[in-house]
């Protein structure tokens, strides 16, 4: 997967360039539509526009988390063990944590103007916050140092435990606060152009995610290669100093 792309010092290929163009076009449409063309919501007025950012971000954050979990399993499973899985997991987590933050902030702002509070203890929101903190812990574990295999093993275990943890957190919060104020954001009548733009938003963000992860993962691969080449150089140095 990496051979063609990790050439020289660039992480771009024809595919990612095409992907990038498509993403920019999609984002352009989303911005134009979200800010200008779409009508105000009957109930929420202009504030509903926040949802054009919030919902796709949330989708992306959860997608990223799922990919990190799957990729970690891919590395830890002996038959498919390959450091590329680990790099994908790491890249996905980095992208995911950013969009998790965007989700939480945009959701919080939206909540303030529509319900009057920045926060509410419902299952979905709390699980998202939990995931955010877990991401941060995961990224900290990736930075603990050691060989690439150690990094992959440690962070892989943390990621899988986090995946197991999510339903536990979700249900414990759901049972704890069974009031479901947030169900109302399942917007009843999204019609025509608004619905279409939501779709565009979801697709565009997904393209954005893939584009970001591909580049980031290749970057990690390049870094790992630099580490290894550094080893050859360090080896040569050490042998020289011994000879002298």
């Amino acid at each position, binding site marked *: 997967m990496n051979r063609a792309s990790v050439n020289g010092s660039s992480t771009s290929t024809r595919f990612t360039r095409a992907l990038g163009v498509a993403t920019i076009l999609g984002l352009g449409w989303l911005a134009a539509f979200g800010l200008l063309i779409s009508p105000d919501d009957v109930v929420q007025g202009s504030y509903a526009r926040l949802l054009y950012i919030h919902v796709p971000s949330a989708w992306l954050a959860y997608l990223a988390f799922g990919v990190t979990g799957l990729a970690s399993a891919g590395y830890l499973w002996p038959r498919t063990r390959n450091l590329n899985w680990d790099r994908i997991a790491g890249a996905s987590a980095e992208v995911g944590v950013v969009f998790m933050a965007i989700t939480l902030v945009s959701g919080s702002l939206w909540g303030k103007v529509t319900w009057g509070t920045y926060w509410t203890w419902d299952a979905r929101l709390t699980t998202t916050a939990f995931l955010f903190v877990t991401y941060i812990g995961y990224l900290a574990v990736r930075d603990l140092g*050691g*060989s690439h295999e150690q990094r992959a093993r440690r962070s892989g275990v943390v990621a899988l435990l986090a995946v197991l943890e999510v339903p536990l957190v979700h249900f414990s919060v759901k049972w704890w606060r069974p009031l479901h104020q947030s169900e109302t954001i399942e917007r009843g009548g999204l019609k025509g152009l608004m619905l279409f733009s939501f779709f565009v938003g979801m697709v565009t963000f997904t393209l954005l995610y893939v584009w970001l992860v591909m580049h980031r993962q290749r970057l990690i691969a390049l870094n790992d290669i630099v*580490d290894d080449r550094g080893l050859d150089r*360090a*080896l040569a140095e*050490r*042998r020289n100093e*011994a000879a002298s």
Partner: protein
Amino acid sequence: MEPVVELVDVVAVLGAFPALAGATLTVERGEIVLLRGPNGAGKTSLLRLCAGLLAVERGTATVLGVDLVLDRAAVRPRVGLLGHSNGLYADLTVADNVRFWGATVGASADEVQGAMSRMGLAERLADVSVGKLSAGQRRRTALACLVARRAELWLLDEPHAGLDATGRDELDATLRSAAAASATVIVASHELERAGSLATRVVEVVGGQVR
């Protein structure tokens, strides 16, 4: 007979640093090999590699018939590593410690007792907390743990450090009798005097390689 240790052009890393830069070494059963070299030469890494603690980045390594590249964990129960630390629990007594480590291989009470007396850990020391012992006594306790674990290969990193002259001689005598009982011993030390009295062979380690 198959050599106990066979390393060919081994490279091992600590982070990005090549602690071993192509080390080649063969050790036969019953030998006492002294690894000599300056600080930072790679002696500790060599020992840890043989103990199955450090991964083999490049080259081949076979210890006690186990291929370290494939499964370095398999060699660990049969090897005893005494590094800069002793691997002891300071709050427990000498007897507790030796008994614990012996129990990891299912050693009997007699074996535990035997291990302690071989290391000269007299009755009166057996029930003293390890934290209260002198450095030499702690070293001997750690060695007793190795004996109790029936280790076939002893890897000792600067074992004489912190011992007085008598302590060092006692240690050497113990090591010689261990080798006679067909354990193999590799000692890393940057002391020059030990060579003649202790080792069957002296090997220089410089810049992550073996001369």
